[in-house]
């Protein structure tokens, strides 16, 4: 009998607690940005196309399975369909590879949007870079047909095949959300 009483007490106690909490850490809203980013991922073997309304025109070597980057040549180019001309920044995530950096040193990256230079950066360290370049609305006369070209120099020449320049993770446009964007 005692066992049952103890057991009953144990199980009943499972439902009897008074719980209170202190005020939690106050959260702040991050800046939400619309992203039209082209992720460099393999599309074969189950991978989906990684970005809508964007595509690689050329200059990116095939992506190996399981990786989220690929080598580029000296002039990788991309196409994007944007919904409006204003407010966009061009974001690029890339890594400068030590195998290249050790042999040829710093590299210069120039970004062209629809053929017009939009910005540049000196890649003088061996690391991952998150770059952002504001894009003037005047450079996007037809947002639905936007072409981005990266010019990288110098690159590591290969005995066979194209030169190896940078490891590109993703490239694309982002902008802050506006009242015109669909809330629902």
């Amino acid at each position: 009998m005692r066992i049952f009483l103890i057991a009953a007490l144990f199980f009943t106690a499972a439902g009897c607690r008074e719980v209170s909490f202190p005020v939690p850490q106050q959260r702040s809203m991050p800046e939400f940005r619309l992203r039209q980013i082209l992720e460099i991922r393999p599309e074969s073997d189950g991978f989906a196309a990684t970005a809508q309304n964007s595509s690689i025109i050329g200059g990116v070597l095939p992506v190996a399975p399981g990786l989220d980057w690929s080598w580029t040549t000296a002039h990788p180019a991309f196409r994007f369909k944007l919904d409006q001309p204003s407010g966009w920044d061009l974001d690029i995530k890339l890594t400068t590879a030590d195998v290249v950096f050790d042999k040829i040193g710093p590299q210069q990256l120039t970004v062209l949007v629809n053929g017009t230079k939009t910005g540049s950066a000196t890649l003088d360290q061996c690391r991952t870079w998150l770059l952002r370049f504001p894009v003037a609305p005047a450079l996007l006369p037809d947002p639905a047909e936007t072409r981005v070209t990266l010019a990288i120099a110098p690159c590591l020449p290969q005995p066979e095949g194209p030169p190896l320049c940078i490891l590109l993770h993703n490239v694309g446009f982002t902008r802050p959300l506006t009242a015109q964007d669909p809330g629902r």
Partner: protein
Amino acid sequence: MTALRILFAALFVYAACRACGQLLFSALGLSFRRGELAFLEFLTGAALFSTLVFCLAATHLVYTSVLVTAGALPILAAYRFRRTQPAPPSDAPLTLAWKLLFGIPYLVFGLLYLIIAMAPETSPDGAGYHLGLISRYYDHRGFYHISTNMYAGLAEGIEMLFLVAFALGRHSAAALVHLLFLLTLPFGMRAWAERNAAPRAGILGALLFFLAPLAGKDGTIAYIDVATAAVVFGAFSLLEIWRTERADSVLLPAGLLAGFALACKITAGPVPVAAVLYVLVVSRSVRLAGRTAFFAFLAAAPWLIKDAIQFQNPFFPLFNHWFPNPYQYPMVESELRRLMQHVSDVPGWQIPWQAVVGGKLFGVLGPVFLLAPLALLALRTAPGRMLLLAFFVAVLPFATNTNARFLLPALPFLALALAFGIVGIPRVGPALGGAVLLLHAGLSWPDFIDRWSPGYQWRIDRPPVATALRVAFRVVPEKTFLNDQWREYAPGLLLDRFVPPGEKVFSPDMGQMAYQHRDLLGTFDSALGRRAFLLFIMGQAKELAGTWHREIHFPPVTASRLRVATRNAVDNDLRISEMRFALGQTEVVREPSWRLSASANPWEVPYAFDNNPVSWWTSGQTVSPGLFLQVDFGHPVTLDRVLLSQSVDQRWTSLRPVALLNGVWTPLRSRENDYEEPPRPSIRMEVADEFKHLGIRWILIPDGSYGANDLLEKAPYWGITRIAEANGYRLWRIN
């Protein structure tokens, strides 16, 4: 080789159970008739072996070598002991005709069941949580706290046997273990009838159960209903043996099995209660009833204790109103109860028809069970009355879930009572019984079911024999079969490939747990899952995405505690995204010393004070007057306003402030200024951000499912990236 491994694994579990049972019976000096001995040894041993495996899982010793040792030791001990035992008494003889009437259908259907059970497991619950959880326990070497799946709180007595089989032969071996119960139960039913001098009724009753399409389907997959039926019938048999022979030592296995019934399936809860009452009524001895209760408790308690520790509720996922916890909302439990009580919206008067031939309750018993009223003829005999009494107890839980499977624990009693009724008809009874048996066998053969039951049924689909054999013996590789036959198989594999271990995946429509290893969040199987589901909808539905701002004004009051309490009943939960206080135009700044609590679901109260509009406290239960959210300021504070942010769907709930004044909770006279804020442009990204905050970085959703199109068409507005797809399922990563 794979097929041999599967067969060996199931036979090993059978041998271990038999051995455990034999050792216990020997220790107690019990002897039974041959037919019932095999049945009762297996079941009682299953209870013991399952409890042993539970202990191994609780101590994180689930290694194949340990499981094999745990099974091999009793086998060796029983083998050594068996040689010194006298042969048990023989069963009553039967005519050749009746032996054939039993043997031929049993062998033919048994072989069919074996081949079907050996096919790769694809059943919804089997390849979902039954084996999904087992495979995770195996990976983790034992139990661990799975807070995202309420099924982890269900008692898993049979699954512990699956675990041993899974370790040796993987998924199909577990299904084969369930088949063992289906194959064994007819012998137990026969033995009970023979003990009551009705061997022919025993044969008819046993096969009425064994051949029933529902029993065949359920017993050949990694479910647990047939096993529960066997355990319940085993407890009944032992209690009857105790009653007739007055051997009190039988109460030990009887109590164990009664408790084990609860450990198999929580809906068998009435069984141990009825067993104890039965002993009390028959013996008029509190001591014997207490002893039975103690043994039942031994078998059931491990699961209750596990749930009490892991989920703060010994009966999780049930009774969350009585044992509130952070893992499941009582409201979701109530919703599920309502759904399960009205499966397919079949009205009560149609239930017998649908269970027998209609199939809307997911499974059919066979047209012969239309004769079920004849079971009342069994009332003429004492055994018949016992059967019907047991049927009444075992069928009670069916009222809580009208899925036909939930009839199975009661079906052996009904089948035997029906058989007693038919065979007991003067002069023509036995012949009629034989005819009914043959008719049932013919109608239950998979090829014929479509002829008497309209439309799709939850039953064995018999492929051509050659194909079935090729699948069973893995001439067709398991992966090929699964890829071809099961839409969810390949999408599930995407998770192992792309989602890092330990990450959660919100997947509102995915049942493939057994062949992948990631943590899935469904829409109802945990509090977190429900939160994720509402969040997901919030991104798309105006009623949730829009904000309902309330300003509750009242005369300035100085109080150290203040509540906002409900005044009316609403068929919805109470949700508050943000709660603030003000005096005049100045907000009372939140202080770390405040203590926040609620009358319901206090664990999520911080969400109402985190300065995030897309996180919320929910009551987790439907609104009734007096539900409250409370702040203890720690010191007197003067206020004249409460500011609440809620979803627009919350506007129907009437709220009022209540302050603690002079030690008395006093409602404050108040008026409200409310207004609606339309959804913000960033609502989808806010939702995605909150997903990440909850530890959810992935969404797996099939095309056509609610919200799938929105993800596809507005992916940039969600801030998600499509990573992979298979069979119409898309895997999204939240950026």
